[in-house]
């Protein structure tokens, strides 16, 4: 198949960017979207034009490194699919596509289609963990976890941290990402001791990183390549309300939070 692609080119974070139009020919319908871009890049190299920079690594939908807004939809908009798992058989010969990086204040562009998502790491560093130093664990079967709870924890933990939720959100909010991590640990007994503190710390870090507020559009849920349910956001809100009180008490006691 043959395609016309309008691709965002931007030299670095400070230069202005613009769309550039390319024609790519003889693409196999079995190829993945990224393999189609590989083909285009090979054609560009043959013309001595610098290839298009895009992030990718595992190419099997799990590392979360790939991104791309395709026709205004993160990862191309197919249900529960990352760009690397999006195949060309879902496009038609002669299609014209617009390909852009994630657009969000908290994700500055590095080059072309690559953005800086380190804000996600900072949110996790603020509290997205269970404090359990290596060596201090009891036998794994000493603490029972109902299968339903373990399954719910798993479903939230399936988040790959790609940032599609932020890119999809009109406010550039990271609520689905943050809430998914909170929900994962909230449904496990191991996550209980730090639950409210974790909620407060992660939401505070999310705000500090420049993500917008949630305004209940739920575009995030529609865009999530791992189909994480927006219900996790309701859980976050419930815990956050409690956490603000608990957090205040801890601060008043000088209990080392923040």
């Amino acid at each position: 198949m043959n395609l016309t692609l309008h691709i965002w080119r931007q030299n670095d974070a400070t230069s202005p960017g613009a769309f550039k139009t390319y024609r790519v020919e003889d693409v196999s319908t079995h190829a993945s979207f990224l393999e189609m871009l590989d083909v285009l890049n090979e054609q560009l190299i043959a013309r001595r034009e610098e290839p298009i920079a895009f992030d990718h690594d595992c190419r099997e939908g799990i590392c979360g490194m790939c991104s791309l807004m395709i026709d205004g939809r993160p990862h191309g908009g197919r249900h529960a699919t990352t760009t690397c798992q999006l195949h060309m058989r879902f496009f038609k010969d002669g299609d014209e596509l617009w390909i852009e990086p994630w657009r969000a204040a908290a994700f500055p562009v590095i080059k072309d289609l690559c953005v800086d998502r380190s804000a996600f790491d900072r949110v996790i560093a603020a509290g997205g963990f269970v404090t359990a130093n290596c060596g201090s664990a009891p036998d794994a079967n000493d603490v029972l976890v109902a299968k339903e709870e373990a399954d719910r924890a798993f479903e939230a933990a399936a988040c790959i941290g790609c940032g599609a939720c932020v890119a999809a959100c009109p406010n550039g909010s990271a609520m689905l990402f943050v809430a998914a991590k909170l929900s994962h640990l909230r449904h496990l007994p191991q996550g209980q001791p730090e639950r409210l503190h974790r909620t407060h710390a992660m939401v505070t870090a999310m705000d500090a990183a420049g993500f917008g507020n949630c305004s209940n559009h739920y575009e995030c849920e529609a865009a999530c390549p791992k189909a994480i349910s927006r219900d996790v956001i309701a859980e976050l809100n419930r815990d956050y309300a409690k956490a603000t009180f608990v957090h205040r008490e801890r601060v008043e006691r000088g209990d080392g939070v923040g």
Partner: protein
Amino acid sequence: MNLDARIPGGPIEQKWANARFEMKLVNPANKRKYKVIVVGSGLAGGAAAATLAELGYDVACFCFQDSPRRAHSIAAQGGINAAKNYQNDGDSVHRLFYDTVKGGDFRSREANVQRLAEVSVNIIDQCTAMGVPFAREYGGTLANRSFGGAQVSRTFYARGQTGQQLLLGVYSALERQIGHGKVRMFSRTEMLDVVVENGRAAGIVVRDLVTGAITAHAAHAVVLATGGYGNIFFLSTNAKGCNVTATYRAYKRGAGFANPCFTQIHPTCIPMSGDYQSKLTLMSESLRNDGRVWVPKRKDDIAKPPRDIPDDARDYYLERKYPSFGNLSPRDIASRAAKEQCDDGRGVGPGGRGVYLDFRDAIARDGEDTIREKYGNLFEMYERITGEDPYRVPMRIYPAVHYTMGGLWVDYQLQTTVPGLFCLGEANFSDHGANRLGASALMQGLADGYFIIPYTLGNYLAGVNAAALPDPRGPLFEAAKAEVRGKLDRLLAVDGKRSIDSFHKELGHLMWEHCGMARSKQSLEHALDEIPKLREQFWSDVCVLGGSDTFNQSLEKAGRVADFLEFAEIVCKDALVREESCGAHFRVEHQARDGEAKRDDDNFCHVAVWEYAGDAAPVRNVEPLAFENVKLATRSYK
């Protein structure tokens, strides 16, 4: 080259306990005075960085991805082994030890494997405590399944995303330490050289992949956990970024490289579909718990729809040839069996390079919902890639490069032949011999990172003067930086016509055809003739666009391919000298009458360790292996 493995004394069950007691300790107040560099943030590196920081060391961690959460450990699907015997089916530390030594075809070091089996139980406890959502039974206890090469259910899992869940656990522990200021994290930063000063590892030289800046970092010890080199074949199940650069540069600085020819071909991957293809996708070995592998008995049937082929016209060849292990035969055996069927003209799908993995009987027995619950995401992934629904038609699978058992040589302390330079996880060679069993890579990565390096690194650092930190502005560091810069400049200066990928693909094809699932003297000699020619072409005709002081993915790739083009020769040389078949290394000249691998224990019961010798040919050294607890025997899975 000193290859003293420093295996502790005493009976095998006592060795690790003895070693731990004999190790020197660093006083808690002094730990913060020691700087440790960890390269790689996967299960081994991430766990090491987090745990060393918990202990109080001053840690810096480097990864080339945009976040430590992306390391390729994340893609492991099926599970992690541990000798918990929760299923009461006869498992024990000794049985896991025994299965691993046998599965590795008697080419691993007994003492290391024993330790791995011992700490496996702690790994499950630790991961559970950190909130890893393993699969559970309705009563709330942990669930298990079986993997190849074992007759017990000892594999813990989180659907088909076990590696992801374990890595996110490691990542959360690492981020906790980053948040506390105990680990300095350098993402999008690639290690390009190791600096060795006065015979000890003194630090590394890295390139900031965003700005292109080349910087030096000094430390009291350097830990490499940079994964395997499967991408030398271009097409593999590895992530695109996986490379040999870090371990190969360490090799050039004096670290011995062990058993490079032990490369694992995984039997169940989605077959190739075209020359645009950038990687191959694994279908987890766990699928062989319920899927049955077959090909048509008659060659005329290969083009027929599989559902129209009745049972008596199907050859369930693994069940036929290996009745006790059946579809759960180890990877090397299952891969070769698939190749034999296809070579025999009974392969299915495009090009006849595929066999069926059929869930019809499991769905009839347990219902579609149960199968979906166990493998849903894998079935989805298969359908997305192939456009076929595996609930209705059998999957088509074919072997693909997956894992490398070879790696930097390490002693019992996980130290390479360079003092102060340690190596963990897939990047080292120690535990899997000539073939790794399924669900053992995650186990080894976490064992090394959580439970071994925290002890053995302390033992090393206790003998190092904390006040004597190497100077990163010293002449050796400056020289290493200049060398790194020089190489990048040379890559840009070639200014030829051919793309980097075209060279990588050609090398991969050469390796797959001549140093892949079956190797011969002739094929390896051919490869050894061709590789230097290809390398010469690369250095005279490669086209690397863009600059070196900017974000440049082409330049990153070119450096990695340049290293593969050198390293490939060592892989082939190792395969050529090892005149036997063992595990994944199959020399067609050395096979039993039934086509099984034929080892030569008289001449090759050893680890081959390659030593860099500058412009001269590399030197092959040997660490003899002794089997005192498992009797050397021909492997049988019949």
